[in-house]
């Protein structure tokens, strides 16, 4: 879920930075405390020694068992004034037991007795344990940091995922939604106000869509019925009249012309209705269709029908073009393109069809000038050489391509008019 990642990233990034600051601050404070404790113990020890010395009492043993060591020596007044009275230093001290140099903290004091004698006192304590302590604190903090960050990350992921469940449910429902299919009602109970609102808005939008769709469906059905039924009656009557053997040839000819006209009208109706249906998305249920296969079936029929024109048909297909498309639409698309190639061709012309994995191109010879690509796909566009066509063939092709998200283009590569549909 990308939203999950985005939110998580932001939350975690901010938290990570804050934790860094906190960790640094914490570490510094702790180390400071450790240092201060160390210094305090040295200062107290030093004070003890100074006051004893001042009172003239015995001083503690130099190595009294505790880790602290001291050195005290009388100094001249100039030397005493040369340095700061109190000095703190970190030094490396050679420790005979360990046989090596180890870090230590030193405080030196310069003080004056009542007799006017200046003394310099230095108090040492090894800091190796404190250093080790600081190091282990550092490691612990690092580990803790990683653990906390990971926990926060996981908690965030869980929390967000859980909260976003209604959104996921809604999206899944939308994915499965089909405009003219049976749809399970949206069941997405949630206490979150925004998601509940989203549910409502989506449901009512879909309901409106469905209503519109239903109305259009009904309208088209009615329109078809109202248009075609009178035509059927008229054509039927003509057919009955044709059964009369006593008609003259002329009369029969007229009746047949009449029949032809009405049939043409019926075809225009059918095409218009189909156009409307396509535009309104009334053709769903796509299937896997091998366009090349379908096309070759049609080509056989057309070749014999237009045999008198002696057209050469060449099909080159590197890979099959398989589209997810409603079968009836596929047939109409191919039939119209093919009919176009046959009808608007010249005597002895040729048709070249190229099929690739992503495109289908029909190229036919015809008029020697390029066609106006802005006009040819508009409904009822007639070229002068075929007045009897409905003028809707290419409009249907365009509508189908739009509906199925295919790209349709025309170009003129002398002497071929090339129509290409592609993904």
């Amino acid at each position, binding site marked *: 879920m990308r939203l999950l990642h985005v939110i998580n990233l932001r939350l975690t990034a901010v938290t990570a930075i804050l934790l860094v600051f906190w960790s640094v601050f914490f570490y*510094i404070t702790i180390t400071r405390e450790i240092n201060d404790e160390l210094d305090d113990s040295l*200062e107290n020890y030093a004070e003890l020694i100074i006051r004893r010395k*001042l*009172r003239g009492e015995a001083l503690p043993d130099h190595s009294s068992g505790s880790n602290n060591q001291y050195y005290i020596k009388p100094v001249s007044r100039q030397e005493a004034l040369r340095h700061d009275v109190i000095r703190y230093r970190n030094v490396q001290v050679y420790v005979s037991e360990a046989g090596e140099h180890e870090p230590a903290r030193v405080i030196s004091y310069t003080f004056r*007795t*009542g007799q006017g004698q200046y003394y310099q006192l230095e108090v040492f304590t090894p800091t190796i344990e404190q250093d080790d302590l600081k190091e282990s604190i550092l490691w612990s903090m690092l580990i803790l940091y990683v653990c906390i960050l990971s926990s926060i990350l996981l908690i965030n992921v869980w929390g967000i995922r859980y909260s976003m469940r209604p959104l996921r449910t809604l999206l899944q429902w939308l994915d499965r939604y089909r405009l003219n299919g049976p749809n399970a009602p949206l069941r997405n109970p949630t206490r979150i106000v925004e998601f509940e609102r989203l549910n409502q808005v989506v449901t009512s939008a879909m309901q409106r869509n469905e209503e519109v769709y239903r109305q259009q469906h009904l309208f088209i059905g009615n329109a078809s019925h109202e248009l075609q039924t009178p035509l059927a009656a008229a054509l039927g009557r003509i057919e009955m009249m044709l059964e009369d053997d006593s008609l003259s040839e002329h009369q029969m000819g007229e009746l047949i012309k009449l029949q032809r006209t009405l049939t043409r009208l019926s075809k225009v109706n059918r095409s218009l209705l189909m156009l409307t249906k396509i535009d309104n998305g009334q053709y769903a249920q796509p299937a896997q269709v091998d366009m090349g296969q379908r096309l070759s079936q049609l080509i056989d029929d057309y070749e014999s029908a237009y045999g008198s024109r002696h057209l050469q048909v060449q099909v080159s297909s590197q890979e099959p073009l398989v589209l997810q498309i409603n079968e009836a639409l596929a047939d109409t698309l191919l039939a119209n393109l093919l009919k176009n190639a046959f009808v608007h061709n010249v005597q002895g012309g040729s048709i070249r069809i190229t099929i690739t994995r992503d495109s289908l191109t029909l190229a036919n010879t015809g008029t020697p000038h390029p066609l106006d690509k802005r006009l040819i796909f508009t409904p009822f566009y007639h070229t002068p050489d075929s007045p009897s066509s409905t003028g809707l063939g290419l409009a249907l092709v365009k509508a189908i391509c739009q509906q199925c998200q295919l790209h349709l283009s025309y170009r003129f590569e002398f002497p071929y008019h090339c129509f290409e549909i592609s993904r």
Partner: protein
Amino acid sequence: MTTYRLTKRVALTLCIIIGCLSMAHADTDKSIRFDQLPQLAQQTIAQQFKGKQIALVKQETDLLSKSYDVILTDGAKIEFDHRGHWSDIDCETYAVPASLVPAPIRSYVSAHYRNAKIVKIERIRRGYEIELSNNLEITFDKAGKALHIDH
């Protein structure tokens, strides 16, 4: 991001870093001259410990407050708070100047421990804590009433 917002962010980060670093500065004691003590402290020393010589004066900086330690050449140590009021007087071998000890405490001690001397007195939260020459520790409240006795 506009320049203004960028600057704001950088400034904020710097402040935080500086804050952290300043906190890292350890408290160390510093030696000061006698005349750098608060007036009140100087007065107390001059009046109550007349004639005594100073061995060492230090200033301690804690998290929020300063305090001063004066060590005399006879080994006594007096601690002062940042305003110059004494907070701990430790004379160890001789008695704390009587005028520095609150009257009720003095009378209590002279009443109960006639032969003992107050060698140390400390201001604590509850009141006062004193140490006698016989190693007794007695805690008093602010009014001077005895609260507790430790051996």
